[in-house]
């Protein structure tokens, strides 16, 4: 199975990289960009064949290592 994980900054956490991207898009002539928030995307290949077991394991991975719960949220999709 494959787990796809998006890690994004929590609301209220400043994102200077997102701001820089927004600025660069403006410089390139893309008008109307009202905000940019950047994050991480991680794919994990799992030997597990049961979807709910896989979800449980990946949830633990996110909490223990993949995201920093002080500043980040995560979302998981498994297929």
């Amino acid at each position, binding site marked *: 199975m494959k787990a796809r994980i998006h890690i994004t900054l929590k609301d*209220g956490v400043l994102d*200077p*990289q997102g701001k*820089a991207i927004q600025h660069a898009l403006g410089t390139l002539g893309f008008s109307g960009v009202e905000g940019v928030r950047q994050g991480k995307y991680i794919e994990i290949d799992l030997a597990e064949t049961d979807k709910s077991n896989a979800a449980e394991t990946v949830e633990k991975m996110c909490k223990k290592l*993949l995201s920093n719960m002080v500043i980040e949220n995560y979302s998981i999709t498994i297929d």
Partner: protein
Amino acid sequence: MKSAVVTFPASNCNRDMFDALEKITGKTPYQIWHQDSEIPDVDLIALPGGFSFGDYLRCGAMAARSPAIKAIALHAERGGNVIGVCNGFQVLTEMGLLPGALMRNSSLKFVCKTVHLQVENTSTNFTNAYTKGQVIDIPIAHHDGNYFADEDTLKILETNGQIPFRYVSKEGNAIASANPNGSQNNIAGIINERGNVLGMMPHPERLIEDAQGGTDGRGFFESIINTLK
């Protein structure tokens, strides 16, 4: 005073920390490799600066899951002193010994320069050799020193005097132009509630003798010696 310096792959200030501790305490620190699961009984464990594990995933994230971390957490739990400088500070927040997180500098640039710090709380294990309100000059060199904590945490840190070091102007004012990385409330270093774990982005170990251009960092190490007397 017995001390230990923990080195991770791509730590690069471990020798500076080792030298500072050896010169100031007169005793050779233990050198601990990140894979060592036991640390000898010491008065102080120091986590040095650098770019452990190439800053992969998040600064300090990999290091904070190393085998040596359990021994560091146990030492802190028993009331032992722990300091983390620069990457060491990032590791301490990632392992949950200190609140908050260190994010990319607001300028997005690596900042390498000497900054002014105000010593706000001199009743800690790590600052008692300074005078209250003293402005000291200490070098910084980091890309991710932008301290973030939620509002409630910040309030607790401020109320309890858990912010011993703050970025200030030469005159001692915590103004935006004196803030090199966008840290909330100009925070340069914090201490845990119990008072035995300190993390800071500036490098006191780089300013302990005249050959380095100044000695403003000595007080940091002398404070720990005072505490143990």
